């Protein structure tokens, strides 16, 4: 990791699914997200948001261009190295939480450190700390089935935070929450951003998009810097 390097640097990154017919899910794009940014990525469904998430989250490899994560060229990495990079540098938050139903909140959070060589006792300690950070210090032993949607998503955020990632990648984090819980959650994300965390939120919700310090719009597989309204005006001009 190079401290000065941007967290995300897309250099002509594109993804084409081989056909027939070939589908250009993401057209070659340039994008730089600096450390400490709070970026929202918006776009209508089918615009390529998921493709962006998969590439940025190292879940899928681009077919064109170079993707540098923390200054590391991800294109030359072996699969196991991409997995390791993903596990150590990225914290994921999903719309459907993806919590393990039979494990307590604390156990769910410790899972994030299972593969990165953190000793067991240290995992429990850090998980407790992360749960306190998201305001769930009193719910550590609760099962996800006994928690509200807002609480579950906060467990998921604690799980994403606990490994000290350089990037928090949130995919529709408020999609399954009511507006009050969504607001609590976004405030939590803003708090994390103020603490210096790089946060990328992918959403189709304009209210959520407005909370970001910077907005990136995806339209028809092309990344544009700026909120969707501005992008549309730009296109008209």
């Amino acid at each position: 990791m190079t401290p000065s390097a941007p967290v995300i640097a897309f250099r002509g990154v594109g993804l084409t699914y081989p056909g027939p017919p070939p589908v250009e899910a993401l057209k070659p794009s340039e994008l730089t997200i600096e450390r400490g940014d709070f970026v929202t990525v918006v776009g209508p469904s089918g615009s390529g948001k998921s493709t962006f998430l998969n590439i940025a989250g190292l879940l899928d490899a681009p077919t064109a261009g170079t993707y540098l994560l923390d200054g590391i060229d991800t294109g030359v990495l072996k699969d196991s190295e991409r997995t390791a990079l993903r596990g150590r540098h990225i914290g994921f938050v999903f719309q459907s939480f993806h919590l393990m139903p039979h494990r307590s909140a604390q156990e769910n959070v410790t899972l994030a450190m299972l593969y990165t060589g953190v000793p067991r006792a240290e995992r429990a300690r850090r998980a407790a700390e992360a749960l306190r950070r998201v305001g769930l210090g009193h719910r550590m032993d609760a099962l996800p089935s006994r928690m509200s949607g807002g609480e579950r998503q906060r467990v998921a955020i604690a799980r994403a935070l606990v490994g000290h990632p350089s990037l928090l990648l949130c995919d529709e984090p408020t999609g399954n929450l009511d507006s009050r819980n969504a607001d609590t959650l976004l405030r939590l994300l803003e708090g994390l951003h103020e603490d210096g965390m790089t946060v990328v939120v992918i959403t189709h919700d304009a209210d959520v998009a407005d909370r970001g310090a910077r907005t990136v719009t995806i339209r028809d597989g092309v990344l544009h810097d700026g909120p969707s309204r501005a992008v549309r005006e730009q296109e008209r001009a």
Partner: protein
Amino acid sequence: MRILLRLRPGLRLRRVLRLRPGLRLRPGLRLRRIRPAVPPTSFALNDLLSEALAGTLQRPGRSALTALGTVLGVGAFVAVLGLTATASSQIDSRFSLLTATEVTVKDIAREQNEFADPAFPDDAGERVERLGGVEHAGVHWPVREDTGQGLAVRTSAVARGQNDMIDVVATAPGALRAAVPHLVQGRLYDDFHADTRQRVVVLSSSIAARLGIATLEARPAVFIGDQPFTIIGIIDDVKRKPDMLLSVLVPHTTAEELWGSPTDAAEMLISTRVGAAVQIAEEVPIALRPDHPEYLKAVPPPDPKSLRSSVTSDLNELFLLLAAICLVIGAVGIANTTLVAVLERTGEIGLRRALGARSRHVALQFLTESGALGALGGLVGTSIGTVTVVVVAVARNWTPVIHTGTLATAPVVGLVTGLLAGLYPAVRAARIQPVEALRR
């Protein structure tokens, strides 16, 4: 001087680049990007085991049902091997003390050479008894008239009827002792009677009753043919050669004097110390007939191992086949359930991959889960099989015997079954792409 070449990765050089004399980049040289060092993620063994255990206990009811096939298979395996071991050890204990210390020697001289004399020398019993490990030894043969007919035995010199034919067996004192008779009255004849060719007999209580003899107080006599004999002992049981109970026994020397040398049906009965029988069976023909050891055939007791295997092999094969079928069914059950679990837990697999699990970690976890199920089934099956053996043995008043090898192998059989069953589901789990798994 430093030259920084910025080229698109993967491009080939078309022309020779002369950087300085002697240092040049040749055409065709492929420039490679410097690979950053990213240490791979790991999955510690104790974490793997506790994750697998947690996965198994997630649905305890289903896990128990899944392990049932292995429980039955391994249980049957242990029960069959245990019961056959138990049964064969009963056979051993019932027969071993008598059969393992008994050697019989047959006179086969006539088969080798039709002009040969009877093979046993006169002092056969004494010679064999001098061998280490021999307790008692002596020859015996059925006595016949020269005409080949049996001898009449009666209590008076006058014939009473035709129904007085009783087998008369010339029996050396050593053979009598080797048969371990149980005396009810009087005494056995011994070497003194034999050496001095006394006219004495020993007979069983049933023959005594048939002859109308109740007590030896009156010194009763019997006539064999027309020769009078004193009855000196009545026996009611023998441990070896039970046909002695149906015969009148006379010292072999007396019989030889009266009715001639033994026929080719002469045999020798030897009782030995425990463990000596096989050795003695080898020595006897040479000790008795160093000139023609082939005239005598010594029959050692059957080898306990071959006895056991011949008794148990038929049972074993059938039931072990059944146990194997149970195991296959168990394996299919585990494979099926694990496969369902893989499909159910696709989201979990995707999450683990997102958190840094390599595909081999995922495969390893599912393999460990199925292996744990198999091993658990194996352990429970071993216990149930052991209990079965003990219950059956107690019910039959047997001593339960299970070989330690069986107990050690059985849980391993369960483990291997589970691992084999988990192979395909684990490969399927490893192939799941995180992108697809997380979309759900």
